[in-house]
């Protein structure tokens, strides 16, 4: 952000700062009833190898580039004439067969960065490759349309950049009991109990008190509201399954939160990829299937959209260690009941026309995906959240 813009924004923000919340809420009433729509974002952290996930099983170039790592045709769960699922994605294929999945190929951005940190920043802030933003796109959504941090929940103990706004952030918790307990520790509680009225016009001190009060009320709200529903379906017993289980409990308790962010680790497969990725895809797809069933059982699936992405794909050519190195464009998954374009949204990856690193070239900008979700699903003004207008896609 330009310094001048930043100054402008921060003065604007500070003048907004003490406008009572109810006034702010009126200002930002959304176009219509986005009220019940939920978005669940899953990041496959480390860079998932998209080509061994959705496999171009009839493409010779794929097999030539991966003599050791390619998935034999017979092991692929075929979906189209060109593409099929990894065999451990059978649960995802089930969802696909029911018309709940839309796969968008070749998603990325110009001048792709191959550092996990930087590329995650870019995906999370929705910036250009040469631009540094200090707020995440979900954070900006929360800031613009929310009164409380719980509008966006990260299923973790600390908050990622994606959930951070400038003056209002989401909140992180993988266990509402612990979160609630932590806002009830001796000093936090005692200091807050003393607070009588509107706080301090002091710049930073006011911000601290405001954040503290919001933290406390969000923690209380999440804790008390989410008590009403406990999942009875058995989830795969692993941390990712638990994250989704908690998410389902939040959604099914009718928590007023709109966006959930879950990060699943382990996808940085530079060596011995085959086994590692197989396991990961199994964990991912089994957990997601149970999650969808849990939501369906409670009639909340119709209002939930699940986006799965990774900070980058991996190189077309395998490396010497039985793995793949950091790449560029990749596929993303959208899962929901109301998809307009079910199955494969666009063309299969082009393995002939690669960039100078030997990586897939993107044909769709990831911010078009965000813009579409913001506009058509959450029904808010996408351009003001993404700082720019991006062409919309047609998947919902």
């Amino acid at each position: 952000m330009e310094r001048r813009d930043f100054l402008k924004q921060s003065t604007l923000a500070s003048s907004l700062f003490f406008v009572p919340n109810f006034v702010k809420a009126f200002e930002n009433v959304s176009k219509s009833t986005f009220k019940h729509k939920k978005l669940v974002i899953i990041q496959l952290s480390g860079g998932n190898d998209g080509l061994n996930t959705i496999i171009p099983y009839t493409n010779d170039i794929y097999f030539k580039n991966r003599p050791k790592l390619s998935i034999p045709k017979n092991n692929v769960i075929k979906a189209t004439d060109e593409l099929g699922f990894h065999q451990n994605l059978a649960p995802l294929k089930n969802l696909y067969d029911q018309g709940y999945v839309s796969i968008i190929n070749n998603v990325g951005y110009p001048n792709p960065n191959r550092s996990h940190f930087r590329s995650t920043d870019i995906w999370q802030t929705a910036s250009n490759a040469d631009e540094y933003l200090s707020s995440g796109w979900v954070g900006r959504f929360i800031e613009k349309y929310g009164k409380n941090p719980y509008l966006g929940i990260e299923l973790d103990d600390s908050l990622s950049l994606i959930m951070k706004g400038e003056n209002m952030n989401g909140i992180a918790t993988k266990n509402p009991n612990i979160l609630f307990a932590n806002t009830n520790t001796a000093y936090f509680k005692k200091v807050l109990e003393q607070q009588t009225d509107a706080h301090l016009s002091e710049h930073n001190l006011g911000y601290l008190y405001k954040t503290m009060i919001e933290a406390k009320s969000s923690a209380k709200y999440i804790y008390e509201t989410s008590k009403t529903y406990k999942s009875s379906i058995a989830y795969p017993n692993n941390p990712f399954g638990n994250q989704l289980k908690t998410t389902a409990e939040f959604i099914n308790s009718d928590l007023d939160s709109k966006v959930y962010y879950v990060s699943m680790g382990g996808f940085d497969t530079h060596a011995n990829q085959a086994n590692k990725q197989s396991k990961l895809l199994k964990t991912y797809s089994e957990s997601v299937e149970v999650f969808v069933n849990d939501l369906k059982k409670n009639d909340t699936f119709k209002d939930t959209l699940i986006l799965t992405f990774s900070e980058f794909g991996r190189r077309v050519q395998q490396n010497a260690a039985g793995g793949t190195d950091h790449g560029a464009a990749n596929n993303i998954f959208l899962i929901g009941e109301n998809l307009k374009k079910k199955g494969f949204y666009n063309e299969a990856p082009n393995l002939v026309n690669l960039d100078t690193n030997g990586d897939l070239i993107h044909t769709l900008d990831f911010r078009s995906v965000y813009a579409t979700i913001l506009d058509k699903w959450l029904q808010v003004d996408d351009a003001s959240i993404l700082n720019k207008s991006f062409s919309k896609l047609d998947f919902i």
Partner: protein
Amino acid sequence: MKQKHIQHLYWRASFGIDIKQIESLKSTSKLKVVSKLMADSTEFKNLELDLSEFDEIKYKTNKELKEKFTEEEIQKLKNKKNRKVRDLNYAWIDKLGESKALLREKMTLFWANVFVCRDNEIFSIQKYNNTLRKNALGNFRVFVKEVAKEPSMLKYLNNKQNKKRKPNENFARELMELFTLGVGNYTEQDIKESARAFTGWNFMKNGDFILQKNQHDFEEKTFFGKTGNFDGDDIIDIILEQKQCARFICDKVYRYFINPKVDEKRLEEITNIFYKDYNISNLMEHIFTSKWFYDEENIGVKIKSPIELLVGIQKVVPVTFDKKQQLNYLQKMMGQTLFYPDNVAGWKGGKSWIDSNTLMFRMKLPSLLLSNAVINLEEKGEFEDSFEKYYKSEKKQNKYLKITKSWESFDEKNQHLKAKEMIDFLILSKLDKDTATFLENLEIKSNRNFCIQLMSIPEYQLC
């Protein structure tokens, strides 16, 4: 000097000051206090780990290494070497709390967030850190030129790959955007031309800078309206001719050392000082001796960075971490791990340190450090981790920090303080009215206890 002013000075120029030192400075004039602060920073020690066990992989070629070790042994040694950056992190935190060169250490931390760099190679990142330390109070012109030639920087911003036939503009762009001028104060053409001047910049195995003549573009370049056969140093000189460069750095200094809200008139004042000769010491001395630095509006209004918070507490009650990894845990939970900045733009600081989760954690930090409080939150895994490792600590609920505390040292200095004196000593910010009432009605069991309580109110987050 007034107590509050001494504290203000020492919080900004360092990480706070203990009550005994405050007492000893009260009768001294501001000029003398500041000049001693400056003088104390002339001598300093480098941050250095014993890395002798890695000498062979540092100096030997791959071929020589393969003659002596197996592939596996080399990999093992390299992995071990890469983990040393963590140790350097712990050593740096210790140094921040212990060094006598107070201002130099604080400035080193400041510059590390201006000339942001990240490198897993221990030799080069250690060298880089010491280059920051050496120049922290020196001449900015020399500073920029030295940083630009550091192996870590040549790697981090791809200047190493910047070659005559295939220029890489990354360093040239960030040099202007983030290190010297700020966005919008140069053209795309300036980037292209200056990138050519930095072609062929590289380093040797021992870390020394080298200009690879066959990769360098000796042709004419036009940069900021000037034309000549410029090399990288010339480019830096031309950048520094722009007053915007002095302003850009002074703006960062202002936000970090004076007030997150910039007073344009004061900024202009210090910019003029700095622009004269780019002497960092002079700039800092001017700020610390000026009357307005001690204005009420500048005191206790800055949100402490996680490192300032952590080191500041240790200055009051010295602690040692029996398990150094727990220092890493604390930094991760609060969002600032030294040597691991998020990206080349560095930590934004200020309000961005604070969200619901970090604030709860930060307010719990004093009891975690000083009264064996239990914590049940886990840090995030790393990108490179396997699935199992990513969630590794999942099951280790309810941990506490293994720490040795020197309460005796605290008692010796602070035992005699009355409640009001304790508040004045620990809290620089204005007190929220309700919190003040709360403190007044608090039954004080001991000063140890009261110290932890005071460190746990929101006001302690400010300095």
